[in-house]
Every structure is written in structure tokens, then in C-alpha cells.
């Protein structure tokens, strides 16, 4: 595993990192509760993966393309996406730039090059290759980063993405968060490969395994891979070894398939605690500072939730927008009927 000799960034910046990680954790905690209270339809927590996500996001540049799966809220926080924008998506309200079209956590924001996520597994991996190819073709010095989990390494488009990227030497950093579980299937039953990183060998480019709960290790591995890609040296696969501390989603109960002992082992390796301890040890942070930070982020989340909950649902007519660039005749006919139904009160917003 890649280990860092010393801190990768100055303490002032590491404090920002810690705050971002804490903010992500606070969003997760709040949203899990909101879902239990019936105020949020669904939720996918990233709890435990903050080191990997924020470590990777922190190492990227503004023009880089993010091709996320549905667990990448931590990455979103590193891209300067406002918390309110994230919550608008979670609530699917009328302020959501995706117009409330998708289940919670399926984010997408063009202005941040954060590509709209879908639910099928691994499909975004090959999109990243197309984006990287196109960026290079247009003379941009950027990379694209597909995010995916251990489960996705078994998917069709992990193979197509890795293979195409190798063939075209595309500037892609494949970022795999091996969080040990694909819903109920443990890592060792997903593949008999000793590591996920070694899969890169077969595609003709390097694969590295890093401690995904170590911000520094992730940050420096991604920085290195990014530099390689920009230099035209081709793609890299990074396997960030981490752990999904929560359920797969709010529809899942992990007690059915994994032991509390395993969870406890990984909780002891909590990436937030780890960075906090490091900063406390160095005297860059006190326990009191940390507690205050947690209070602040929780308050920030509470306020953003309150705001997002107040925003109403999307207008009924938006149902028909963006299917095609313009409604084709068959859709125009349906829109007309829909308007009549609304007018007659047969359907109500």
C-alpha cells in the first residue's frame, strides 16, 4: 500500500480537508435520519469513505471530468458545489438542476463537470474514456475520473473502459473505492484477483493500491496518476481500500450479511478520526476545535435542509421536458392531454 512520509498539504489546508470530510459525514447522518422520518425518499450514505472521496477530489483540477456513481457526495463537496445544490437534488425539488428527475444521490452538474450519474453499475467508466479522448482531441489538458466500487470491477463497462483507455492511452484515472461490500457480496466473492489494482496489468497500464482511509495516501496517488495522464503516459487504476460503514442504502440492513465485529474493526480506522488525530498530535487542532467544527457543520446542514425542504416540487409540465431536444409530435399530443387532465382536475399537482 502507498504510504506517505509526511503531510501532503499544509495544516491550514488539511483543516479545510477535515472540515469537508466532517461536512460530508454530517450530511450523511442528517439524511439517514430524514429518510427514517419519511422526509427524504431514499438515501445512499458514503460514511467511512470520506478519506478516499475527498482525498481524490482534492487532487483534481477544476477542468477535470468527474464520472460518479451514486455514492459520490464527498467528491461533490470538493468541487465547490454548494451544500444547498446537493440538498436540492436529494429532495428533488424545483431548484434541482436535474428537475427532480432522479432518485436521491444521482447528482449531475454540468458547470462543475460532474456528470449525471445513473443507477446501473459501471456504465460511467467507459463514458470517462470518451470524455478524456474528446478533451485531448480538443487540446484540453484535463483528465477524467470515473468513480466506482469493488462490485463494478465485475461489470461489462469496467472491462470496456479499462480496455479502451489502454488502447487509446486516454488521460483517465480510474478511481475504485473498494469498500469491501457490493450490497451483500463481500470483496472476496466478487473476484478471485488478489487485489483489484492488479487488474490494470491485463490492460497494459499501472494499478496501485492505497489505503483509502488515509487522505494523504489517496491524495498523492491521485496527484501522481493525474500528472502521468496529463503528460500523455496513459491511464492509471487506483484501488482505494476503504469500508462502507453504513448500509448500501436506506433500503438495506447490513446486519443480515456482515458482523458487528468487522464493522468495529473498520470504525477504528475511521478516516476522519485519523486525520483529526494527526492534526491534534501536531498541535494544529485541539479537541475543542474539532468539536466546534462538528457543531458548525451540523448547523450548516440543518439550515440547508430547512431551506431545501421549503422549496416546492417541480412544475407538472416539466415532466415532458428534455426527453428529446424538442417535443416530437407524439409527445406534443401527450402534453396536450396532460394539460386537459390538469385543467379538469383528473390529475393534481
Amino acid at each position: 500500500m502507498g504510504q506517505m512520509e509526511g503531510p501532503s498539504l499544509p495544516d491550514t489546508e488539511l483543516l479545510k480537508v477535515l472540515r469537508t470530510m466532517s461536512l460530508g459525514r454530517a450530511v450523511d447522518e442528517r439524511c439517514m435520519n430524514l429518510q427514517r422520518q419519511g422526509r427524504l425518499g431514499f438515501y445512499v450514505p458514503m460514511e467511512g469513505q470520506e478519506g478516499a472521496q475527498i482525498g481524490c477530489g482534492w487532487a483534481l483540477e477544476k477542468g477535470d471530468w468527474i464520472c460518479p456513481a451514486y455514492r459520490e457526495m464527498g467528491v461533490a463537496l470538493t468541487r465547490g458545489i454548494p451544500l444547498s445544490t446537493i440538498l436540492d437534488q436529494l429532495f428533488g425539488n424545483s431548484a434541482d438542476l436535474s428537475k427532480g428527475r432522479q432518485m436521491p444521490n444521482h447528482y449531475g452538474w454540468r458547470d462543475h463537470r460532474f456528470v449525471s450519474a445513473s443507477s446501473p453499475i459501471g456504465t460511467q467508466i467507459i463514458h470517462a474514456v470518451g470524455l478524456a479522448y474528446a478533451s485531448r482531441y480538443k487540446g484540453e489538458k484535463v483528465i477524467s475520473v470515473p468513480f466506482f466500487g469493488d462490485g463494478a470491477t465485475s461489470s461489462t463497462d469496467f472491462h470496456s473502459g479499462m480496455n479502451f483507455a489502454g488502447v487509446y492511452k486516454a488521460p483517465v484515472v480510474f478511481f475504485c473505492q473498494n469498500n469491501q461490500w457490493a450490497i451483500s457480496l463481500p470483496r472476496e466473492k466478487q473476484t478471485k484477483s488478489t487485489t483489484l489494482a492488479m487488474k490494470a496489468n491485463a490492460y497494459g497500464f499501472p494499478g496501485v493500491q492505497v489505503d483509502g482511509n488515509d487522505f494523504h495516501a489517496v491524495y498523492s496517488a491521485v496527484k501522481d496518476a493525474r500528472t502521468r495522464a496529463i503528460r500523455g503516459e496513459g491511464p492509471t487504476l487506483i484501488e482505494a481500500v476503504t469500508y462502507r460503514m453504513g448500509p448500501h442504502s436506506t433500503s438495506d440492513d447490513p446486519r443480515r450479511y456482515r458482523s458487528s465485529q468487522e464493522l468495529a474493526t473498520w470504525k477504528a480506522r475511521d478516516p476522519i478520526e485519523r486525520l483529526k488525530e494527526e492534526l491534534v498530535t501536531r498541535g494544529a487542532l485541539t479537541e475543542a476545535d474539532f468539536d466546534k467544527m462538528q457543531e458548525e457543520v451540523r448547523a450548516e446542514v440543518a439550515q440547508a435542509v430547512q431551506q431545501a425542504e421549503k422549496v416546492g416540487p417541480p412544475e407538472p409540465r416539466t415532466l415532458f421536458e428534455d426527453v428529446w431536444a424538442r417535443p416530437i409530435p407524439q409527445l406534443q399530443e401527450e402534453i396536450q392531454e396532460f394539460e386537459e387532465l390538469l385543467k379538469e382536475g383528473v390529475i393534481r399537482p
Partner: protein
Amino acid sequence: MTDMTLIQGVNRALHQAMKADPDVLCLGEDIGVNGGVFRATEGLQKEFGEARVLDTPLNESGIVGMAVGMALYGLKPVAEIQFLDFIYPAFDQIVSELAKFRYRSGGQFPAHVVLRTPYGGGIRGGLYHSQSTEQLFASTPGLKVVIPSTPADAKGLLLTAIFDEDPVLFLEPKRIYRTATGEVPDGDHRVPFGKARVVREGSDVSVFAYGAMVPLAFQACQVLEKTGIHAELLDLRSLVPLDVEAVVRSVEKTGRAVIVHEAPKFCGFGAELAAILAEKALYSLKAPIVRVTGYDTPFPYSLENLYLPSVDRIGRAIQRTVAAG
């Protein structure tokens, strides 16, 4: 105007588009050095280079997914799937990704990809080089589905597809790649989507066809003309968007409808046409709607001529429909 075959029409459209716009790229299996297994992309790599005409690894999901990524950036990729029969590994990319990107992102991420693929039987291609499964895609909101039957339409519809804003499945009737010949306008010739072509006018019965079924239906109509049956033939050209107005108008005039396609009958595109006519032209109908289609079997090899609609089968159906009322 230049005389050419349907496949040359495809080639000319690609050439025209690539010359006009550096954002147009082609990708697919064997399309570069080899010019495509049917030679649709002949000469393109030589002229535009390997960066714009990509020979891809053998992976349809990869081809479509890569094209989606290019389109998300803003390029105009034209991907070739060697045979429609081989498109299914990419079905997830087409249905879950390509067709839904614009919608799921609230319009932030349109993905405009043209998927060209030869389809249909009559070339002794057996189960896996012959199928017509346009209905699978026509029933996916977000996609457009277009099928030329003449060289001029091949060029004109493909150019429209490449410069359209939506993903387009462009189905090429390979059986008539070289037998369909005709004059094609030079330069930037575009044929709009959603406009059926009246192949011949008639007053007794409306025949609806597309792709390789158009010339067969035309022959059937010509034969019947001699027996005093005046059949109107419409080449639909685009299934999505469909020229509903032209379909309904024709049946309002003739009172009878015969629908021809190669795909199996059950839940085929003909079912949609029949439903539209039932909804919008029922009171004009003098006889039951008839479908002449491939059978509800997998596509056969040795017996393909018995499976596919023929001039005689189409002619018989037209005759009976006219006689029915």
C-alpha cells in the same frame, strides 16, 4: 446530382459531415483501415486520420459508451455497430445512458450520438446477421429511429442525424445497400425527420413500409396496378419521430391499410401503426388493417425467403384487403 448506391450515400454523408465539422468523429469495429465490413466508411480514415476514424476493440458496449462520453463533451460521434444483431451488449448503454442523459440531468447533459448499423434479412445471414428489432428502440423515449430506403435518403437522413441534437439510431437496410441506386444531390443534402415519403399515390389502399421492404412493396403495388388496384405507398423513413399526419391522411383517403415490415409481427412497429389508425382513423376504415411481417420465430437461415415478406405475399395482402370491403 450523382448516381450512386445506398451505401455510397451513407459514405458521402459521413465524408460531407467530417469535412464540414471537425467535431464529427467515426468509431467502430473494422471501420478504419478496412473501411467497414460493408465498406460504408471506405476512405475516411485515409482522409481524416486515425484520431477521427477510430478502429475500436471488439466491444459494442465500449463503442457506444465511448461515443456517449465524446458526446457529453460536445463532439458529434458517429458509431458503427457492425450488425444490428450485435448491438445487444450495448443495450444498457443505449437505453439506460444514451437515451436518458438529457432527461435525467434536466437538460444539462445532452448526449448526441449517431448509431449507424446495418439491419435486416435477405442476405443469407441467418439468426445473427439478419434481424430487424427496430421496435425495441422505437419504444425507448429519447431516441430517434431512422431508416432510409434510397441513396438520396441515406445521405440526406444521415446528414440530418449527424447535425441533429438527439441520439439517433440510423438503421441501414443492408439487403439493398448496393441494389438501391439513384441520383443523390451533391453537397449538404438534408432530409428532415418525421416526414414520410409518398413513393406512389393511390386511392384504394395505403401501404406502409420502410427500409428494404419499400422496393418489394413498390413492386407489389406496380403489379396490382395492372389489375386495377391503385395502391398508395408510403416510405415512413423515420419511425421516431413518426409522420402520424401522413399515415392518417392516407388512410382517410383510401380507407384501407396494409403494413409491411421484416420484424416479427407481435409487438412490432406495425402494431403501433395499427393502434394509431384505430385511434385516429377508425371511421375511415373499410376493411381490417393487415400486417405483412416476419414471423414470430427467430430469423431462419435456409428458409429465410419463406420467412421474409415477399412481393407475392405483400400483393396477396393488398388484394385481400381491397376485396374485404
